[in-house]
């Protein structure tokens, strides 16, 4: 009885090319396992090999070293058997623009050996059935993202779902709808997801695999543990029109970090973020103010650097 959906030991991957004969090592040493039915997010800084790892597990790239078993099957020797039991969707997947949504879905259903019905159900939930006979060349990025997921969800027999930044391009409302749908539909399936959005990860995953640059496993932590590790929820970046003394900034908000000529604030929650942003805008001292929600990469990077408390 196989209990692990994925079991990798010392997995390595190096891309070689004529300019660099030694190659670029993207996965240095990956060892981890995922139990059947678990949900795992993969995160890490740029160049840590998140997408490459997903593509190796999806049998797209051949690993150079180590060994890996997917549902008890050898990743290299039994790739075709594995492909029948997994579903991989990448944000890079596009469609034949001259074909309608229906024609595209029917094609992907045919090659997957699955029914197109699960995709229709998902599209119906996402209110996209009215454009089923439109050519995909007219689609927005959000509609394309929904279509990608529809294709991934078509293969109902798949036991592992590998999703690479599939919520990219979705607006907040759509993202909520997608998360709700996935939460309901992926029960009993193993989910591996690469996504920067902490909301997506928090609601869909139980654990997070953090990768270090060079493709090494830093740690695997539970999502709760990771989310609690950062005492701030937003990052506000302000560029002043002239050099400001510390006391001038403290009048706006007492806690801040200087980084060159840039001033950064780390509010604990959304309300605090709004207050700081409003104050910054009112002062007329800033030439630019940008606020963003902390994403999973921030958590992962800060977590692995263990420098969270330095800021607050």
């Amino acid at each position, binding site marked *: 009885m196989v209990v692990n959906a994925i079991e990798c030991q010392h997995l390595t991957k190096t891309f070689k090319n004529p300019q660099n004969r030694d190659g670029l090592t993207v996965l240095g040493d990956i060892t981890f396992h995922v139990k059947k039915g678990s949900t795992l997010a993969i995160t890490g800084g740029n160049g840590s090999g998140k997408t490459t790892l997903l*593509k190796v597990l999806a049998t*797209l790239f051949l690993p150079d070293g180590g060994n890996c078993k997917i549902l008890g099957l050898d990743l290299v020797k039994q790739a075709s058997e594995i492909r029948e039991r997994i579903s991989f969707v990448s944000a890079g997947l596009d469609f034949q623009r001259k074909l309608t949504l229906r*024609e595209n879905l029917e*094609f992907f259903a045919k090659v997957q050996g699955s029914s197109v019905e699960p995709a229709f159900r998902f599209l119906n939930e996402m209110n996209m059935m009215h454009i089923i006979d439109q050519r995909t060349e007219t689609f927005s990025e959000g509609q394309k993202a929904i279509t990608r997921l529809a294709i991934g969800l078509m293969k109902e027999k798949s036991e592992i779902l590998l999703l690479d930044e599939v919520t990219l391009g979705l607006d907040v409302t759509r993202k909520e709808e997608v998360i709700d749908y996935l939460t309901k539909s992926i029960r009993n399936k193993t989910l591996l997801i690469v996504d920067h959005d902490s909301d997506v990860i928090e609601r869909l995953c139980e654990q997070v695999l953090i990768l270090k640059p060079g493709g090494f496993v830093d740690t695997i932590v539970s999502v709760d543990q990771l989310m609690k590790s950062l005492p701030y929820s937003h990052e506000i970046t302000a560029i002043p029109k002239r050099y400001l003394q510390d006391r001038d900034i403290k009048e706006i908000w007492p806690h801040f970090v200087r980084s060159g000529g840039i001033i950064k604030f780390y509010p604990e929650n959304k309300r605090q973020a709004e207050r700081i942003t409003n104050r910054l805008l009112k002062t007329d001292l800033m030439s630019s103010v940008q606020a963003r929600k902390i994403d999973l990469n921030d958590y992962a990077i800060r977590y692995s650097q263990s420098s969270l408390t330095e800021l607050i």
Partner: protein
Amino acid sequence: MKLLRQILQNMRILGAVVKRNILVDLRYKFQIFVEITWTTVNVLAFVLLGAAWDATASPAGVPYSMVTFFLVATGFFTVFSGVMESTVEAVTEESKLGTMGFLITNSVSPTTIILGRYIAATIRWLIVLFVIVLPPLVFKGVYPNTLSLVFSSILVFFMAWIFMAGFTLILTSVSLIFKRTTTFNKVGIYIVRFLSGAIVPIFSFDSSFRILGKPLSNILIWFPPTYALETLRWLFSVQDEKSIVSGGTVSKDGLVYGSFNSIFHMNATNFGLNDPTLQLMYLISFVFLLLSGLFSYWLTQVSRRWGTIEFY
């Protein structure tokens, strides 16, 4: 049982790929217009060349119409080079679309993608052949006028089609490594295009040019596409040769094989299923296609290892 299942699965996928390509092709109407124009210009140029030849050459030297001589050869070679040109982009286009990764992880091999495109392109170019090339031939009374000759023409065309599938498979698979349609691909296409114009003069006027003691045409005839070209020309335009045969009504079939064998020192019997020469050509073509398939598989594995199978 497993092998049968695999074959059925591959046929299903191939069918889906062909259907998608036909649907897409039909929607690029301007492309079809360009192809029809290109074929028409090509055919017209050679018909004019043939007409000019007919007007100046002595009847004893060339005892049949050069117009039909050129038309048959040019028409068929235009179809083959057109099919190749459409197919050679298959891998590059899937990579650009981002569908390559998804298709690979669903057991759709690059070989299937290429052959799917080859079959769809053949259907498109056969339509062009029937619309542009065959009507002038029929109008001039140049066509296989018995059922057995029609059947032979189809058999010969199919044999060359199999061989060209292998050639195209090799040419297109290279894109798995180099990603773009490279000079290598283009050289391949230009060779076929050049042959479409040059092979006819070579076959007609090489009696004094010998290699290994044989006219060049007697060597080239063992290359399946040139064999097909010459045979098709024979099967279509042979009735123009009536003038050189004395003694009442001539059996077209008898004329075909007798002349063919005496010129090329072969032992063709009827260009049918039991013709030993055609059987040998089929064997060469199928072996070549099989080797091309193995080459394509090897390149797929290399590109999975090098990461060039998909942009990363």
